[in-house]
Protein backbone atom coordinates (compact mmCIF):
# COMPACT_ATOMS: atom_id res chain seq x y z
CA UNK A 1 0.00 0.00 0.00
CA UNK A 2 1.15 3.50 -0.81
CA UNK A 3 0.14 6.50 1.19
CA UNK A 4 1.10 9.26 -1.21
CA UNK A 5 -0.70 12.60 -1.19
CA UNK A 6 -0.99 12.16 -4.94
CA UNK A 7 -3.87 9.87 -5.96
CA UNK A 8 -2.13 9.21 -9.29
CA UNK A 9 0.91 7.85 -7.45
CA UNK A 10 -1.29 5.61 -5.31
CA UNK A 11 -2.82 4.10 -8.45
CA UNK A 12 0.61 3.02 -9.73
CA UNK A 13 1.02 0.15 -7.23
CA UNK A 14 4.66 1.12 -6.79
CA UNK A 15 5.44 -1.57 -4.26
CA UNK A 16 5.73 -4.18 -6.99
CA UNK A 17 9.25 -2.92 -7.85
CA UNK A 18 11.95 -5.27 -6.63
CA UNK A 19 14.83 -2.84 -7.17
CA UNK A 20 16.56 -4.80 -9.92
CA UNK A 21 15.59 -2.44 -12.75
CA UNK A 22 18.48 -0.89 -14.71
CA UNK A 23 18.45 1.37 -17.76
CA UNK A 24 20.62 -0.18 -20.47
CA UNK A 25 23.44 1.75 -22.15
CA UNK A 26 22.10 3.24 -25.40
CA UNK A 27 18.50 3.05 -24.22
CA UNK A 28 18.31 6.85 -24.18
CA UNK A 29 19.17 6.94 -27.90
CA UNK A 30 21.58 9.25 -29.73
CA UNK A 31 22.62 12.83 -29.18
CA UNK A 32 21.72 15.58 -31.64
CA UNK A 33 23.03 19.15 -31.58
CA UNK A 34 20.36 21.83 -31.95
CA UNK A 35 20.66 25.13 -33.85
CA UNK A 36 18.12 27.87 -33.32
CA UNK A 37 17.17 30.69 -35.73
CA UNK A 38 15.64 33.62 -33.90
CA UNK A 39 14.34 35.53 -36.91
CA UNK A 40 14.41 35.38 -40.68
CA UNK A 41 17.77 36.50 -41.96
CA UNK A 42 19.64 35.58 -38.77
CA UNK A 43 22.18 32.78 -38.45
CA UNK A 44 21.19 29.50 -36.86
CA UNK A 45 22.99 29.41 -33.52
CA UNK A 46 23.97 26.38 -31.48
CA UNK A 47 21.83 26.22 -28.32
CA UNK A 48 22.33 22.72 -26.91
CA UNK A 49 21.36 19.14 -27.61
CA UNK A 50 18.62 16.55 -27.32
CA UNK A 51 18.52 12.76 -27.15
CA UNK A 52 16.41 11.16 -29.87
CA UNK A 53 16.13 7.92 -31.86
CA UNK A 54 16.39 9.74 -35.19
CA UNK A 55 16.63 13.22 -36.72
CA UNK A 56 12.92 13.81 -37.26
CA UNK A 57 12.07 13.05 -33.65
CA UNK A 58 15.09 15.10 -32.55
CA UNK A 59 13.48 18.04 -34.30
CA UNK A 60 10.25 17.55 -32.35
CA UNK A 61 12.13 17.32 -29.04
CA UNK A 62 14.18 20.38 -30.03
CA UNK A 63 10.96 22.32 -30.54
CA UNK A 64 9.82 21.42 -27.02
CA UNK A 65 13.20 22.10 -25.45
CA UNK A 66 14.46 25.17 -27.32
CA UNK A 67 11.44 26.66 -29.11
CA UNK A 68 8.76 26.79 -26.43
CA UNK A 69 9.12 30.48 -25.56
CA UNK A 70 10.52 33.64 -27.10
CA UNK A 71 11.15 34.13 -30.79
CA UNK A 72 11.99 31.21 -33.04
CA UNK A 73 11.38 30.77 -36.74
CA UNK A 74 13.38 27.64 -37.47
CA UNK A 75 15.48 24.86 -35.89
CA UNK A 76 18.17 22.54 -37.26
CA UNK A 77 19.34 19.28 -35.73
CA UNK A 78 22.46 17.33 -36.60
CA UNK A 79 23.95 14.20 -35.06
CA UNK A 80 26.67 15.05 -32.57
CA UNK A 81 28.73 12.28 -34.17
CA UNK A 82 28.66 14.18 -37.47
CA UNK A 83 30.23 17.35 -36.09
CA UNK A 84 33.87 17.72 -37.07
CA UNK A 85 35.81 20.20 -34.95
CA UNK A 86 39.41 21.24 -34.45
CA UNK A 87 41.18 19.99 -31.39
CA UNK A 88 41.06 22.62 -28.65
CA UNK A 89 44.81 22.10 -28.23
CA UNK A 90 45.28 23.50 -31.72
CA UNK A 91 43.79 26.86 -30.85
CA UNK A 92 47.21 28.47 -31.24
CA UNK A 93 46.84 28.23 -35.03
CA UNK A 94 44.48 31.20 -34.77
CA UNK A 95 46.72 33.11 -32.38
CA UNK A 96 48.26 35.52 -34.90
CA UNK A 97 44.92 36.50 -36.48
CA UNK A 98 44.91 39.91 -34.77
CA UNK A 99 48.39 40.57 -36.21
CA UNK A 100 47.17 40.31 -39.80
CA UNK A 101 46.28 43.97 -40.04
CA UNK A 102 46.59 43.77 -43.84
CA UNK A 103 43.29 41.80 -43.75
CA UNK A 104 41.56 44.61 -41.89
CA UNK A 105 40.23 48.04 -42.89
CA UNK A 106 41.97 49.48 -39.84
CA UNK A 107 45.32 48.32 -41.27
CA UNK A 108 45.24 51.01 -43.98
CA UNK A 109 45.90 54.59 -42.89
CA UNK A 110 44.71 56.52 -45.95
CA UNK A 111 43.95 59.79 -44.13
CA UNK A 112 47.57 60.14 -43.04
CA UNK A 113 48.67 59.92 -46.66
CA UNK A 114 45.98 62.28 -47.90
CA UNK A 115 46.84 64.86 -45.25
CA UNK A 116 50.53 64.58 -46.07
CA UNK A 117 49.79 65.05 -49.77
CA UNK A 118 47.57 68.05 -49.07
CA UNK A 119 50.24 69.61 -46.86
CA UNK A 120 52.86 69.17 -49.57
CA UNK A 121 50.73 70.61 -52.39
CA UNK A 122 49.57 73.67 -50.48
Amino acid at each position, binding site marked *: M*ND*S*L*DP*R*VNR*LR*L*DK*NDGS*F*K*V*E*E*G*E*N*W*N*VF*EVFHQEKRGAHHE*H*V*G*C*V*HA*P*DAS*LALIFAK*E*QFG*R*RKKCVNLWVV*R*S*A*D*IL*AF*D*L*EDEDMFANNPDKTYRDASGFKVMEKINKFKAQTK
Partner: protein
Amino acid sequence: MYGGGYIFDEPNRKQQREEQLHDDPVKLAAFEARIARGEKIEPGDWMPVEYRRQLIRLIEQHAHSEIIGALPEGTWITRAPGFKRKLALIAKVQDEVGHGQLLYNAAETLGKSREAMINDLLSGKSKYSNVFNYPAETWADVTVIGFLIDAAAIVNQVANSKGSYGPYCRALERICYEESFHLKQGHDAFIELATGTPAQKAMLQDALNRWWQPIMHFFGPPDKTSSHSEKLMQWKVKMASNDDMRNQFLDAYVPKIWELGLTLPDPLLKKNADTGKWEYSDPDWDLFFEVIKGNGPCNKERLDVRKWAEENGRWIRKALMREDEMERSALPVA
Protein backbone atom coordinates in the same frame (compact mmCIF):
# COMPACT_ATOMS: atom_id res chain seq x y z
CA MET B 1 15.22 25.83 -10.02
CA TYR B 2 17.01 23.52 -7.81
CA GLY B 3 20.72 23.42 -7.40
CA GLY B 4 21.11 23.41 -3.68
CA GLY B 5 24.46 24.37 -2.24
CA TYR B 6 25.03 20.99 -0.71
CA ILE B 7 26.37 18.36 -3.06
CA PHE B 8 26.66 14.92 -1.55
CA ASP B 9 30.03 13.20 -1.71
CA GLU B 10 30.87 9.65 -0.85
CA PRO B 11 32.81 9.57 2.43
CA ASN B 12 35.92 7.79 1.22
CA ARG B 13 37.51 9.38 -1.82
CA LYS B 14 41.10 8.59 -0.92
CA GLN B 15 41.81 6.62 -4.08
CA GLN B 16 40.67 9.48 -6.29
CA ARG B 17 42.86 11.93 -4.45
CA GLU B 18 45.84 9.64 -5.14
CA GLU B 19 45.02 9.86 -8.83
CA GLN B 20 44.87 13.60 -8.60
CA LEU B 21 48.46 13.62 -7.41
CA HIS B 22 49.40 12.11 -10.76
CA ASP B 23 47.97 14.93 -12.86
CA ASP B 24 50.66 16.29 -15.16
CA PRO B 25 52.01 19.34 -13.26
CA VAL B 26 52.66 21.38 -16.41
CA LYS B 27 49.15 20.79 -17.73
CA LEU B 28 47.69 21.43 -14.29
CA ALA B 29 49.46 24.79 -14.08
CA ALA B 30 48.20 25.80 -17.55
CA PHE B 31 44.68 24.69 -16.59
CA GLU B 32 44.70 26.69 -13.38
CA ALA B 33 46.15 29.72 -15.13
CA ARG B 34 43.35 29.58 -17.71
CA ILE B 35 40.72 29.57 -14.95
CA ALA B 36 42.49 32.36 -13.10
CA ARG B 37 42.32 34.46 -16.30
CA GLY B 38 38.54 33.97 -16.28
CA GLU B 39 38.50 31.70 -19.34
CA LYS B 40 36.12 28.75 -19.63
CA ILE B 41 37.08 25.09 -19.78
CA GLU B 42 35.49 23.17 -22.66
CA PRO B 43 34.77 19.44 -23.02
CA GLY B 44 37.82 18.59 -25.16
CA ASP B 45 40.26 20.39 -22.84
CA TRP B 46 42.67 18.61 -20.54
CA MET B 47 41.37 18.75 -16.98
CA PRO B 48 42.42 17.26 -13.63
CA VAL B 49 40.76 13.97 -12.73
CA GLU B 50 39.33 15.52 -9.58
CA TYR B 51 37.89 18.51 -11.47
CA ARG B 52 36.07 16.18 -13.86
CA ARG B 53 34.79 14.00 -11.02
CA GLN B 54 33.55 16.93 -8.94
CA LEU B 55 31.83 18.54 -11.92
CA ILE B 56 30.06 15.31 -12.90
CA ARG B 57 28.91 14.99 -9.29
CA LEU B 58 27.72 18.60 -9.15
CA ILE B 59 25.96 18.76 -12.52
CA GLU B 60 24.48 15.27 -12.30
CA GLN B 61 22.96 15.96 -8.88
CA HIS B 62 21.69 19.28 -10.13
CA ALA B 63 20.02 17.45 -13.06
CA HIS B 64 18.43 14.86 -10.76
CA SER B 65 17.13 17.69 -8.57
CA GLU B 66 15.33 19.24 -11.52
CA ILE B 67 13.65 15.98 -12.45
CA ILE B 68 12.74 14.93 -8.90
CA GLY B 69 11.77 18.52 -8.07
CA ALA B 70 9.06 18.37 -10.71
CA LEU B 71 7.29 15.61 -8.74
CA PRO B 72 5.99 17.48 -5.64
CA GLU B 73 4.75 20.31 -7.87
CA GLY B 74 3.43 18.05 -10.60
CA THR B 75 1.20 16.50 -7.95
CA TRP B 76 -0.77 19.75 -7.86
CA ILE B 77 -1.35 20.26 -11.60
CA THR B 78 -4.69 18.44 -11.47
CA ARG B 79 -5.75 20.45 -8.42
CA ALA B 80 -4.36 23.92 -9.18
CA PRO B 81 -6.88 26.63 -8.23
CA GLY B 82 -8.06 27.99 -11.54
CA PHE B 83 -7.08 27.88 -15.18
CA LYS B 84 -4.35 30.53 -15.08
CA ARG B 85 -2.55 28.89 -12.14
CA LYS B 86 -2.83 25.51 -13.85
CA LEU B 87 -1.31 26.84 -17.09
CA ALA B 88 1.56 28.47 -15.21
CA LEU B 89 2.22 25.35 -13.15
CA ILE B 90 2.26 23.09 -16.21
CA ALA B 91 4.69 25.50 -17.90
CA LYS B 92 6.92 25.59 -14.82
CA VAL B 93 6.99 21.81 -14.40
CA GLN B 94 7.82 21.41 -18.09
CA ASP B 95 10.65 23.92 -17.65
CA GLU B 96 12.05 21.95 -14.72
CA VAL B 97 12.09 18.73 -16.71
CA GLY B 98 13.71 20.65 -19.58
CA HIS B 99 16.36 21.94 -17.16
CA GLY B 100 17.06 18.35 -16.20
CA GLN B 101 17.70 17.54 -19.87
CA LEU B 102 20.03 20.55 -20.32
CA LEU B 103 22.01 19.58 -17.23
CA TYR B 104 22.25 15.87 -18.10
CA ASN B 105 23.67 16.98 -21.45
CA ALA B 106 26.25 19.19 -19.73
CA ALA B 107 27.27 16.30 -17.46
CA GLU B 108 27.46 13.93 -20.44
CA THR B 109 30.10 16.13 -22.07
CA LEU B 110 32.34 15.06 -19.17
CA GLY B 111 32.06 11.41 -20.16
CA LYS B 112 29.32 9.88 -18.00
CA SER B 113 26.39 8.47 -19.96
CA ARG B 114 22.84 9.54 -19.23
CA GLU B 115 21.91 5.91 -18.59
CA ALA B 116 24.62 5.61 -15.93
CA MET B 117 23.37 8.79 -14.25
CA ILE B 118 19.78 7.54 -14.18
CA ASN B 119 20.90 4.20 -12.75
CA ASP B 120 22.90 5.95 -10.03
CA LEU B 121 19.85 8.02 -9.15
CA LEU B 122 17.59 4.95 -8.96
CA SER B 123 20.08 2.98 -6.86
CA GLY B 124 20.46 5.87 -4.42
CA LYS B 125 24.19 6.26 -5.18
CA SER B 126 23.65 9.74 -6.62
CA LYS B 127 21.62 12.27 -4.65
CA TYR B 128 19.34 15.20 -5.39
CA SER B 129 18.37 18.31 -3.49
CA ASN B 130 17.09 17.36 -0.07
CA VAL B 131 14.07 19.69 -0.14
CA PHE B 132 12.27 17.37 -2.56
CA ASN B 133 12.06 14.65 0.04
CA TYR B 134 9.30 16.65 1.71
CA PRO B 135 5.65 16.47 0.62
CA ALA B 136 3.61 19.32 -0.90
CA GLU B 137 0.61 18.91 1.38
CA THR B 138 -1.52 21.85 0.25
CA TRP B 139 -1.65 24.39 -2.55
CA ALA B 140 0.15 26.79 -0.21
CA ASP B 141 3.15 24.43 -0.27
CA VAL B 142 3.27 24.84 -4.05
CA THR B 143 3.42 28.62 -3.66
CA VAL B 144 6.18 28.33 -1.03
CA ILE B 145 8.17 26.04 -3.33
CA GLY B 146 7.56 28.25 -6.37
CA PHE B 147 8.54 31.42 -4.53
CA LEU B 148 11.15 30.52 -1.91
CA ILE B 149 12.75 27.27 -3.07
CA ASP B 150 13.09 28.73 -6.56
CA ALA B 151 14.50 31.93 -5.08
CA ALA B 152 17.08 29.92 -3.13
CA ALA B 153 17.93 27.93 -6.25
CA ILE B 154 18.40 31.12 -8.23
CA VAL B 155 20.93 32.42 -5.69
CA ASN B 156 22.83 29.17 -6.13
CA GLN B 157 22.50 28.98 -9.91
CA VAL B 158 23.43 32.58 -10.62
CA ALA B 159 26.62 31.96 -8.62
CA ASN B 160 27.34 28.70 -10.48
CA SER B 161 26.71 30.28 -13.89
CA LYS B 162 29.91 32.27 -13.39
CA GLY B 163 31.88 29.06 -12.89
CA SER B 164 34.64 27.66 -15.08
CA TYR B 165 32.99 24.86 -17.07
CA GLY B 166 31.58 26.18 -20.37
CA PRO B 167 28.72 23.70 -20.98
CA TYR B 168 27.43 24.06 -17.40
CA CYS B 169 27.54 27.87 -17.59
CA ARG B 170 25.67 27.88 -20.89
CA ALA B 171 22.97 25.57 -19.54
CA LEU B 172 22.62 27.73 -16.42
CA GLU B 173 22.27 30.90 -18.43
CA ARG B 174 19.20 29.50 -20.12
CA ILE B 175 17.91 28.01 -16.85
CA CYS B 176 18.25 31.28 -14.92
CA TYR B 177 16.23 33.09 -17.57
CA GLU B 178 13.35 30.62 -17.17
CA GLU B 179 13.68 30.65 -13.38
CA SER B 180 12.85 34.33 -13.33
CA PHE B 181 9.36 33.39 -14.55
CA HIS B 182 9.12 30.63 -11.91
CA LEU B 183 10.02 33.03 -9.14
CA LYS B 184 7.58 35.67 -10.33
CA GLN B 185 4.63 33.30 -10.71
CA GLY B 186 5.47 31.79 -7.30
CA HIS B 187 5.64 35.20 -5.68
CA ASP B 188 2.33 36.15 -7.30
CA ALA B 189 0.55 33.02 -6.01
CA PHE B 190 2.20 33.47 -2.57
CA ILE B 191 0.97 37.08 -2.31
CA GLU B 192 -2.53 36.05 -3.35
CA LEU B 193 -2.76 33.70 -0.36
CA ALA B 194 -1.01 36.12 2.01
CA THR B 195 -3.47 38.90 1.20
CA GLY B 196 -6.52 36.65 0.92
CA THR B 197 -9.09 35.29 3.36
CA PRO B 198 -8.15 34.28 6.93
CA ALA B 199 -8.26 30.63 5.85
CA GLN B 200 -5.85 31.32 2.95
CA LYS B 201 -3.46 33.20 5.25
CA ALA B 202 -3.54 30.39 7.80
CA MET B 203 -2.85 27.80 5.10
CA LEU B 204 0.14 29.80 3.86
CA GLN B 205 1.52 30.38 7.36
CA ASP B 206 1.27 26.65 8.05
CA ALA B 207 3.14 25.79 4.85
CA LEU B 208 5.81 28.39 5.61
CA ASN B 209 6.31 26.93 9.11
CA ARG B 210 6.78 23.44 7.71
CA TRP B 211 9.13 24.52 4.88
CA TRP B 212 11.36 26.89 6.84
CA GLN B 213 13.73 24.23 8.13
CA PRO B 214 14.18 22.53 4.72
CA ILE B 215 14.81 26.00 3.26
CA MET B 216 17.48 26.70 5.90
CA HIS B 217 18.99 23.29 5.03
CA PHE B 218 18.96 24.12 1.33
CA PHE B 219 22.40 25.73 1.06
CA GLY B 220 24.05 22.96 3.06
CA PRO B 221 25.91 22.76 6.37
CA PRO B 222 27.65 25.83 7.80
CA ASP B 223 31.06 26.73 6.38
CA LYS B 224 32.84 25.82 9.60
CA THR B 225 31.93 22.15 9.10
CA SER B 226 32.27 21.70 5.35
CA SER B 227 35.46 20.30 3.88
CA HIS B 228 37.37 20.38 0.58
CA SER B 229 35.98 23.74 -0.57
CA GLU B 230 39.22 25.58 -1.18
CA LYS B 231 40.37 23.73 -4.31
CA LEU B 232 36.82 23.75 -5.70
CA MET B 233 36.66 27.51 -5.22
CA GLN B 234 40.03 27.99 -6.93
CA TRP B 235 38.82 25.85 -9.85
CA LYS B 236 35.56 27.80 -9.92
CA VAL B 237 33.45 24.71 -9.42
CA LYS B 238 32.03 26.06 -6.19
CA MET B 239 31.43 29.79 -6.54
CA ALA B 240 30.22 30.89 -3.12
CA SER B 241 30.26 29.41 0.37
CA ASN B 242 27.12 27.85 1.86
CA ASP B 243 26.84 30.54 4.54
CA ASP B 244 27.34 33.37 2.04
CA MET B 245 24.58 32.05 -0.21
CA ARG B 246 22.26 31.50 2.76
CA ASN B 247 22.90 35.05 3.92
CA GLN B 248 22.27 36.43 0.44
CA PHE B 249 18.97 34.54 0.30
CA LEU B 250 17.83 35.72 3.76
CA ASP B 251 18.77 39.27 2.94
CA ALA B 252 16.69 39.33 -0.21
CA TYR B 253 13.66 37.28 0.83
CA VAL B 254 12.98 37.52 4.58
CA PRO B 255 11.83 41.15 4.17
CA LYS B 256 9.52 40.03 1.33
CA ILE B 257 7.92 37.48 3.71
CA TRP B 258 7.66 39.84 6.68
CA GLU B 259 6.16 42.68 4.64
CA LEU B 260 3.12 40.48 3.98
CA GLY B 261 2.45 40.10 7.73
CA LEU B 262 3.70 36.50 7.83
CA THR B 263 6.04 35.13 10.50
CA LEU B 264 8.96 32.71 10.38
CA PRO B 265 9.35 29.96 12.99
CA ASP B 266 12.71 31.13 14.32
CA PRO B 267 12.76 33.59 17.25
CA LEU B 268 16.48 34.29 16.73
CA LEU B 269 16.14 35.30 13.08
CA LYS B 270 17.29 38.89 12.62
CA LYS B 271 19.76 40.96 10.69
CA ASN B 272 22.71 42.13 12.74
CA ALA B 273 22.90 45.86 12.05
CA ASP B 274 26.63 45.98 12.79
CA THR B 275 27.84 43.08 10.65
CA GLY B 276 25.10 43.25 8.01
CA LYS B 277 24.79 39.47 8.37
CA TRP B 278 21.71 37.49 9.30
CA GLU B 279 21.59 35.57 12.57
CA TYR B 280 19.42 32.48 13.00
CA SER B 281 18.99 29.31 15.02
CA ASP B 282 20.94 26.39 13.66
CA PRO B 283 18.55 24.08 11.83
CA ASP B 284 18.71 20.40 12.81
CA TRP B 285 21.70 19.16 10.78
CA ASP B 286 21.38 15.58 12.07
CA LEU B 287 17.93 15.49 10.50
CA PHE B 288 19.40 16.89 7.25
CA PHE B 289 21.89 14.01 7.01
CA GLU B 290 19.24 11.51 8.01
CA VAL B 291 17.03 12.65 5.10
CA ILE B 292 19.98 12.54 2.66
CA LYS B 293 20.59 8.95 3.74
CA GLY B 294 17.11 8.10 2.51
CA ASN B 295 15.01 8.44 5.65
CA GLY B 296 12.98 11.53 4.77
CA PRO B 297 9.21 11.49 4.39
CA CYS B 298 9.23 11.12 0.58
CA ASN B 299 12.60 9.62 -0.46
CA LYS B 300 11.13 6.24 -1.26
CA GLU B 301 8.14 7.57 -3.14
CA ARG B 302 10.28 9.91 -5.29
CA LEU B 303 12.62 7.13 -6.41
CA ASP B 304 9.81 4.62 -6.83
CA VAL B 305 7.98 7.02 -9.13
CA ARG B 306 11.14 7.65 -11.18
CA LYS B 307 11.75 3.92 -11.42
CA TRP B 308 8.16 3.33 -12.49
CA ALA B 309 8.52 5.96 -15.23
CA GLU B 310 11.77 4.46 -16.55
CA GLU B 311 10.43 0.92 -16.42
CA ASN B 312 7.10 1.71 -18.04
CA GLY B 313 8.61 4.03 -20.65
CA ARG B 314 11.01 1.35 -21.85
CA TRP B 315 8.67 -0.22 -24.39
CA ILE B 316 8.22 3.04 -26.28
CA ARG B 317 11.92 3.90 -26.19
CA LYS B 318 12.61 0.47 -27.66
CA ALA B 319 9.81 0.76 -30.21
CA LEU B 320 11.33 4.00 -31.52
CA MET B 321 14.91 2.71 -31.47
CA ARG B 322 16.61 2.48 -34.86
CA GLU B 323 19.43 -0.04 -34.87
CA ASP B 324 21.08 1.63 -37.90
CA GLU B 325 21.18 4.92 -35.99
CA MET B 326 22.60 3.49 -32.79
CA GLU B 327 26.01 2.73 -34.29
CA ARG B 328 26.74 6.44 -34.54
CA SER B 329 26.30 7.11 -30.85
CA ALA B 330 28.42 9.94 -29.48
CA LEU B 331 28.61 12.33 -26.56
CA PRO B 332 27.31 15.87 -26.97
CA VAL B 333 30.04 18.13 -28.33
CA ALA B 334 29.24 21.27 -26.36
